[in-house]
């Protein structure tokens, strides 16, 4: 099962295993990763599952669609490597993906 590494703004880190086909957000919620609120449940409507994807991984992910980028406008402290974790689907290729949760979600 692919491993996903979550870091927080304080530098703490938590590694979880996520089934292929689930989203990074769903993996985080199931494993109670702090800092992922996911208020809208994955409908790309709230920007509270916002993460920063580690630079080396960012370009390996399928590009964000317009709706996601629009939603990231609403996120707390968006950066160039911002993504919504509900839009990143886990595959074997993403084994070892590192994301950082922002200081807060809203």
């Amino acid at each position, binding site marked *: 099962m692919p491993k996903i590494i979550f870091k927080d703004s304080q530098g703490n880190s938590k590694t979880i295993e996520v089934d292929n086909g689930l989203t990074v957000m769903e993996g985080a919620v199931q494993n109670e990763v702090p800092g992922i609120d996911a208020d809208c449940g994955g409908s790309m409507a709230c920007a509270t599952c916002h993460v920063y994807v580690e630079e080396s991984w960012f370009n390996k992910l399928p590009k964000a669609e*317009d709706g996601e*980028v*629009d939603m990231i*406008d*609403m996120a707390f402290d968006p*950066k160039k490597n911002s993504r919504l974790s509900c839009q990143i689907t886990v595959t074997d290729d993403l084994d070892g993906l590192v994301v950082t949760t922002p200081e*807060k979600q809203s």
Partner: protein
Amino acid sequence: MIKTDVVIIGAGPVGLFAVHQLGIKGLKAVVIDNLDKAGGQCIELYPDKPIYDIPAVPECTGKELTDRLLEQIKPFKTNLYLNERVEEVKSENSNWFVKTNDGNKFSTPNIIIAGGVGSFEPRKLALKDIEKYEGKSIFYAVKNKEEFKNKNICIFGGGDSALDWSLELSKFSNITLIHRRNEFRGAQHTIDAIKKLEGQGKISIKTPFQLEKVEGDDEIKSITIKDDNGKTEKIKTDIILSFFGLVMKLGPIAEWGLNMDKKTISVNPNNFETSKKGIFAVGDICNYEGKLKLILSGFHEVALASVECFKRARPNEKYRFEFTTSSKTIQDRLGKK
């Protein structure tokens, strides 16, 4: 003080259908919601997105679902208290006392919390010590245009609210529109109009910039913005208008002494009563074993909760289960002859 059989908190699809299920049982309800319109997440988050899992409705948008529910509850002539948030719930003689931030007071044997993920509130700027400017130099909505005349206004955001207000306020104020990327996501004709005004020197557009800090005493005097490369720029500013959409906040619900599990309310799945008699929770906000956060689950939940509400509101009457197809009483209540 308004007396009613049930106070429903939340005018989303589940809160609206609660009116129906209570209404066909002869119960009067009021609905309170912090948004300015009915529909909850359906209307605020995905009015145009199709929903495919409403039984017998192969496809409808959030807006269509809301409109149909409003149509369905029309016969019950229910008062919707919009733009109001329930602040206080307390026990008063065997009834519940409910008070909103607008000062409306209700006395009721039953409260149904259909609050979704909480009430929608503007997403606020996250800089330190910025709250002291709120209402004086920082605003999240324009209520009275007069207050925004002849000022230096910085508007943050890339959507329709930011663009529309930039256009409108540029008629009598000095506008700087600031957005974190070069693309705006508003309507194309609005974007074109803004670009035209920029060309004429009537609006200043700063992209890709974000707010770095604000300077001032009682009121803001200037702000500093920063781009992705760390380049900063200082702008003389009287007013910041910030349009970063809405967030959902659980708010006062967490303080009503109900058994909670994270941000959800634990209920008895037989009647969706919470740990307090006469307070029910339905829809996304309730939690029980096997709970699914689906609109259709919420419809089922209010149907069962409404039976318990009837028993509490009409303790001297016997509850009779009836079908809408055959019950003359229900058909009368629906205004069908």
